[in-house]
């Protein structure tokens, strides 16, 4: 071992050098990763701000002309240039709420089955099919809505609803197919994949010891699922619902094809209405005149605000009603 002393010396050095180089390496890598991810996050934040800013600037004319009244008036007349956003806000909120009302139990039910009860291959195959639904273009949903769903609603669902619950004001009046109701149903079908797909993932991610502990205490399978697994995954599930809600609020093509495009406010879900995204898509390309264009841009700003407010309210609701929220 002629090289003994050298080895010894280098050994003596190595841990020190190694540690330093590792530290430096880690520092630079961490720093680089930090910068990169920060950049990614700020870009998204900046894009959101920029969209907001642009909408605000470009809608100046309409905001000056109508003021806050814009939010509370019902007129929409491009010829006399009288514009109000209320029927569109109403339509957007009502159809999205209805979509969630249908999609949450349905989607959550499907997710629980796929994550907790179905055999693994069946679960994978079904999940794949459900995720395919999310990739269907929305115009296809709109066409299916007009040509398939509306006749079904007209012939079976609405008569049944009217004969059983017809005394409720929300089911009164004549049904012409295109309506808040049809739009809500089409939207619910469109947002279910988001809820199912994300909720299933978070349910699957619930640690096994949680289930084992529950079972050990004598809970049945369903009790375990409902009382332990679902509450554990609640944060992820609400996340999936927010994603679905955002999709419902902003959905354009499918909604405009089945909502009837009438700027009015009706209590009955069977009446026709309009949504914010739908009127922007319908009228923006042909909008002539600065005030008209500006009013449409202000509507986009309103949609932004509505999404923000509804999201906020939904979060508050969750904080107020769940234990997890209360702890947090």
């Amino acid at each position: 071992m002629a090289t003994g002393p050298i080895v010894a010396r280098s050994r003596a050095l190595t841990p020190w050098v190694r540690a330093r180089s590792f530290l430096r390496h880690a520092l630079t890598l961490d720093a680089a990763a930090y910068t990169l991810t920060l950049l990614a996050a700020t870009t998204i934040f900046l894009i959101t701000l920029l969209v907001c800013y642009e909408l605000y600037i470009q809608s100046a004319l309409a905001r000056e002309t109508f003021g806050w009244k814009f939010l509370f008036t019902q007129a929409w007349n491009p010829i006399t240039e009288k514009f109000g956003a209320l029927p569109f806000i109403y339509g957007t909120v009502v159809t999205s709420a209805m979509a969630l009302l249908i999609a949450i139990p349905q989607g959550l039910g499907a997710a629980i089955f796929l994550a907790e009860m179905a055999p693994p291959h069946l679960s994978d195959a079904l999940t794949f099919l459900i995720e395919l639904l999310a990739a269907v273009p929305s115009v296809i949903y709109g066409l299916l809505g007009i040509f398939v769903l509306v006749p079904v609603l007209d012939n079976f669902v609405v008569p049944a609803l009217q004969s059983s619950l017809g005394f409720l004001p929300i089911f009164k009046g004549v049904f012409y197919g295109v309506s808040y109701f049809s739009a809500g149903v089409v939207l619910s079908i469109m947002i279910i994949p988001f809820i199912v797909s994300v909720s299933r993932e978070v349910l699957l991610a619930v640690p096994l010891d949680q289930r084992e502990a529950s079972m050990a205490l004598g809970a049945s399978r369903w009790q375990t699922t409902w009382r332990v697994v679902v509450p554990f995954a609640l944060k992820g599930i609400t996340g999936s619902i927010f994603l679905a809600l955002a999709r419902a609020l902003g959905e354009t093509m499918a909604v405009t094809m089945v909502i009837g495009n009438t700027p009015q406010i009706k209590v009955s879900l069977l009446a026709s209405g309009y949504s914010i995204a739908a009127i922007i898509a319908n009228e923006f390309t042909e909008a002539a005149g600065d005030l008209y264009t500006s009013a449409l841009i202000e509507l986009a700003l309103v949609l932004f605000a509505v999404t923000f407010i509804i999201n906020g309210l939904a979060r508050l609701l969750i904080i107020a009603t769940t234990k997890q929220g209360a702890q947090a």
Partner: protein
Amino acid sequence: MRKFMIVLTFLGILAASVTLATTSIVGAGSTFTYPIMSKWTNQYFKLHPDVEINYQSIGSGGGIKQVTEGTVDFGATDGPLDDKQLAEFKQKRGSNVLHFPTVLGGVVPIYNVPGVNGNLKFTPAALAGIYLGHITKWNDSELTKANPGISLPPHDIVVMHRSEGSGTTYCWADYLSKVSPEWKNNVGVGTAISWPVGLGGKGSEGVTGLVKQTPYSIGYVELIYALQNKLGYGDVQNLSGKFIHADLASVTAAAAGAAKSMPSDFRVSITNAPGPTVYPISTYTWLLVPQKISDPIKKKIVVGFVHWVLTEGQKDAEPLAYAPLPKSVQAKELKQLATVQ
């Protein structure tokens, strides 16, 4: 990465060679004329491989806006510019904009009344009454009077219209405002209007879908759309009191009927034109060309293309179910084309 660079270089060379070989001009506007515009630009490219004309069907409103801003070389619209828009153009571009009628189209009423198979006849008062919401039943006397021998049911009329801004709506509203003072005063004319009654369908296919799905409904679509999709449609009574079934001949007759009163700037509505064979809900569609085009090469191409559209290109109109220009209008337009500087 290397592959990416190769592709990039290739694309660069391609782009360079394209710009070297051809000059391209860009037009934008009306979706109604898109089928014939794409045929025209295609044909013209075959005849003149050094010229590429790119037409984007973004809607008439968008076409007017873009030609006013100068972001496109020409525009296309289903409704002529109003005085305010003309003034805005002049202020922004320092010259006038010229209207060139290219082809004609009609708008026809379609309906779905179970038990009625033949062509229904509509008087102007009936159409205005239905769309104003005054006539609400199919067996209204205004309808039964015009349709002797057809038993019309006592059902409510479900009114359908286009939901998005559209030249078709412009033509329909323009006609209704000519036959009904009430429409003119309370509703007005535009590509998008505030409808007194009815449900909105998106696009011609949306309106057709709604009418097909909804018993006892009425709607309106372009004649081309009705012909291409083999839809039945109603006859409309013209100024001479005759009920006319729309076709290319009766639409062209409307242009001929209105040719005498054609103003020098071609901004004319030919709805409700006089003449016994005229279909009354007809309209021109226009190309919008700035009178001053500073780039001499572009000027030459635009003028050449418009000239070809007004002459040779007219042959392509009929196979696509558009009505060609009457000769007298064509001659006037060629004169106007010579004034482009």
